[in-house]
């Protein structure tokens, strides 16, 4: 089937955001069903595509649909990597610990909205954009982000 112009634009948008959407899906679903969540995000993006009015930036809109879909994905998220304590012990033993693994473990302990704030920050969104995605004030997002960073650094990065 030859894709329409609308479908081509949609495919291009997904291609541009593919890696970020995969990361998001992986952090809201377990290892066995993150691909289901990713496909559900694609479907929700497709279904709400016609309602994109251009008031928000396209990327903000993509993250908003993706995050809302992920939050509705009610299956309990599973820890994807080692438990926090395991990683902390690994570090205590003097072995080098990959900061990305520590970050993954930290993210897995967060409740869904905090997880969303942190993931959007890691994807490079500004405070105002995160606030726009979530419908919160930029100030509230800034305070929460500072606390999250401090919690992460206090737990994992003090000795690195």
């Amino acid at each position, binding site marked *: 089937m030859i894709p329409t112009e609308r479908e081509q634009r949609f495919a291009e948008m997904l291609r541009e955001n593919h*890696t970020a959407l995969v990361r998001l899906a992986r952090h809201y679903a377990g290892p066995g069903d993150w691909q289901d969540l990713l496909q559900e995000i*694609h*479907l929700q993006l497709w279904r*709400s595509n016609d309602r994109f009015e251009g008031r928000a930036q396209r990327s903000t809109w993509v993250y*908003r649909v993706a995050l809302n879909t992920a939050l509705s994905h009610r299956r309990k998220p599973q820890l994807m990597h080692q438990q926090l304590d395991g990683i902390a012990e690994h570090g205590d033993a003097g072995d080098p610990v990959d900061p990305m693994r520590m970050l993954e473990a930290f993210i897995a302990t967060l409740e869904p*909205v905090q997880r969303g704030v942190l993931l959007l920050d890691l994807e490079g969104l500004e405070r105002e954009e995160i606030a726009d995605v979530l419908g919160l004030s930029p100030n509230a997002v800034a305070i929460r982000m500072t606390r999250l960073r401090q919690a992460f650094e206090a737990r994992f*990065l003090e000795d690195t």
Partner: protein
Amino acid sequence: MDWNQIRRQWQNTSDAVAPVSDSEMLADVRQRESKVRNLVKRRDRLETIIAVLLVPVFGYAAWRAGARADWLATFFSLWLTAWVIYVPWHFWRVRRRMAQPRPELTLIVYLTQQRDAMLAQARMLEQVWIWYLAPCAIGVIGLNLAAAGATAGTLIYATIVLAFCAFLGRLNRRAARTHFRDLAAQIDQQLARIAEEYEA
């Protein structure tokens, strides 16, 4: 390592998942979209088919009873005819009123819409007695009374029908409580936490 370095490293992790081709991705979206559409169509069609099949049955019964001047049987046959037309119309009306949560809206608006949709579903199940079970029970018991008269058998039949309706009513109330009201409460908690943490 500072936070900006962590962010950069995060954005450079590809998660080793190659994107699928555009055609595969579009085919998957099209397939899922048509699956959802077909599911809705099938459900609506089933409700209409049941109504279309039952209306002539009860309509004919009403006509026959009317021809015999059996007004009680005519009344209850017409009652049941009206009920089988009312049920799909009620579903259609409730679904039209129930706003579908729109994921492109902000998180708080989306969660509020989701909660409202859950509560609407719960109310529909809790009121199943009023719009589904009671009219059906009245019609069936009334028709049996008109046909057999006030006998012990009619009483037993009415008791069985009412007991079965009570059982279905309880099942629906339970589903409303354990599924939809529980989910609505979870969303409420999430909204309260957001208000507490981010809007204080």
